[in-house]
């Protein structure tokens, strides 16, 4: 038995099998011989030998022992873990979308192309950009696409000396990583006392070598960057481009647009803002958007619409437009990935947009902001809220004072929340707040859920003062108790090895 099995009662599927147990519904040997050369057939793979019932029980048990938004509250800051309406999945599962082959010609894919076209137009209008490409697979992938666009743009202008990317110290770690991967040098900018990007600090580093300034708005402290116009103007005056990290776009849909703030490039995480299941890391969807002067550089393919000869403006788009995938864009940075990216996610995102409508999306953001502020004002007397003002969709609290007083850290509060049936908030990020908890409730939670969470957080802090050990020992009610994170990081044991316990 593996160590995991003894700790948690969950055996690995390899350890549950017995040689010869597998049900042989298909005689695989004969059929594989017919398709594959003998040299490619292997018999040395230690595949588990399980009956169908073993497999069904194994994965059903795992599904019962995991935690997700369908089971409970998931206030993981900057990840926007909101409810995923089932209608979105139903739409993505329509046979015409689900069974469509990626090599099907444009004339047989009109419905799918129309979905991509209408999503692209909707996003452009919602965020004030000239155009989007739905090609990148997730947020960081789209950041990379945007920086490749900037690089090519400067190359075409003969400005290859622009090699600096400015990143605030509250930025998501992917910002400097994407910039470095693209060959830019990263300049980190400290925030001011209000938790905003400092205009003065930016002006200090602007110059003829400035390529891009990357900003998240609202930033990772949940605060709106109220000097954004001044910053975009200064960066533009220096000849640089402004990039909007859309991780926190749930805070401003329909209320403010990055395009109007002066951003030239942006990305969205439709899996966050537009409700696509993304627990466990995937699959994501990261449209990249540009202002008019950068359209030619978007990744290919781009869906374009042509007026039909018999088209009439009074009819539905599908009756007057023909959609094609345009690969012939000489200035494009090229495809970021194969085929149409995670197309089913485009269907889900469009379904969400159409279900809510423009007014509905505006209300989504307003409620997300209201919920975050409701929690903030109800915990600020027990935890420090270092930036104590009206926040947007998320806020940060610090356990620094509690740690000094009781030894209970942000990590321990997070573990204690697991014991009480909640997912933990994001911890220790952004790095400028010590013992940080970053809480994002999203708009989909009821006041009752928020009240139960607030009560749990208050009770944990109170218990930390009377019986800190009970918090340091948490969690006790979960399938797996307090794990040794240090040992996991130092001696990662990531896969099953035949014959090894």
């Amino acid at each position, binding site marked *: 038995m593996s160590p995991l099995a003894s700790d948690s009662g969950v055996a690995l599927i390899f350890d549950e099998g017995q040689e010869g147990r597998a049900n042989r519904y298909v005689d695989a040997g004969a059929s594989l011989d017919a398709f594959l050369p003998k040299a490619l057939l292997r018999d040395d793979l230690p595949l588990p030998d399980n009956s169908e019932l073993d497999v069904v029980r194994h994965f059903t048990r795992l599904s019962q022992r995991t935690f997700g938004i369908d089971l409970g509250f998931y206030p993981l800051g900057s990840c926007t873990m909101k409810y995923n309406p089932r209608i979105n999945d139903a739409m993505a599962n329509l046979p015409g979308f689900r069974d469509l082959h990626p090599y099907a010609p444009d004339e047989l894919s009109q419905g799918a192309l129309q979905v991509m076209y209408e999503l692209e137009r909707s996003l452009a209008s919602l965020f004030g950009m000239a155009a989007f490409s739905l090609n990148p697979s997730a947020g960081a992938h789209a950041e990379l696409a945007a920086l490749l666009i900037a690089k090519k743009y400067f190359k075409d202008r003969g400005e290859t000396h622009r090699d600096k990317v400015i990143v605030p110290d509250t930025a998501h770690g992917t910002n400097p990583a994407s910039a470095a991967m693209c060959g830019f040098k990263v300049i980190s900018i400290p925030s001011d006392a209000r938790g905003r990007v400092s205009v003065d600090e930016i002006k200090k580093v602007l110059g003829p070598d400035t390529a891009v300034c990357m900003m998240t708005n609202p930033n990772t402290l949940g605060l709106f960057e109220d000097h954004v116009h001044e910053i975009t103007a200064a960066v533009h005056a220096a000849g640089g481009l402004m990039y909007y990290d859309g991780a926190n776009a749930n805070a401003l849909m329909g209320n403010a647009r990055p395009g109007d703030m002066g951003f030239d490039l942006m990305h969205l995480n439709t899996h966050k803002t537009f409700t696509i299941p993304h627990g466990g890391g995937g699959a994501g969807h990261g449209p990249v958007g540009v202002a008019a002067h950068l359209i030619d550089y978007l990744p290919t393919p781009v869906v374009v619409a042509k007026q039909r000869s018999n088209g009439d403006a009074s009819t539905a788009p599908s009756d007057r437009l023909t959609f094609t995938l345009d690969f012939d864009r000489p200035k494009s940075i090229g495809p970021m990935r194969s085929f149409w990216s995670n197309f089913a996610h485009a269907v889900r995102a469009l379904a969400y947009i159409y279900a809510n409508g423009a007014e509905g999306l505006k209300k989504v953001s307003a409620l997300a902001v209201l919920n975050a502020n409701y929690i903030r004002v109800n915990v600020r007397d027990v935890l420090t809220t270092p930036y104590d003002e009206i926040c947007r969709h998320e806020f940060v609290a610090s356990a620094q004072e509690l740690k000094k007083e009781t030894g209970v850290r942000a*990590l321990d509060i997070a573990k204690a929340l697991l014991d009480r049936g909640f997912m933990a908030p994001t*911890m*220790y990020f952004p*790095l400028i707040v*010590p013992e940080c908890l970053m809480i994002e409730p999203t708009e989909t939670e009821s006041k009752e859920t928020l009240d139960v969470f607030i009560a749990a957080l208050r009770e944990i802090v109170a218990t930390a003062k009377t019986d800190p050990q009970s918090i340091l020992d948490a969690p006790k009610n979960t399938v797996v108790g307090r794990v040794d*994170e*240090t040992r996991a*990081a*130092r001696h990662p044991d990531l896969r099953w090895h035949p014959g090894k316990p």
Partner: protein
Amino acid sequence: MAQPQDLLYSKEHEWVKLDGDVATVGITDYAQDSLGDIVYVELPKVGAAIRQFGTIGVVESVKAVSDLFTPISGSVIEINAGLEADPALVNREPFAGGWLFKVKASDTSETAKLLNADAYAELTAG
């Protein structure tokens, strides 16, 4: 928090102990406490020339990956080989067995730019 009086400190939370022109460098108790359990330390190579306040390595904890800076310029003459197998030494004994590397200092007058124990204590008091 412990702050040995005979050491000098940088604002980036490194300490340095000068013995002639040989400087021993580590991170402070405050730094190890803020970082949490350290799982990996990436140090400069022996022989590497390093410049005061430059980035010369990385400290990885369960919470975050942080840059390591050198409080003094010179040539690296020894690294703490024990950290490879037991990086937690930095947590347990930041000012003793958890030292990081030794430098043959090229200009000992650079220490004028460092803080004494009282000034460092004041910096980390907040």
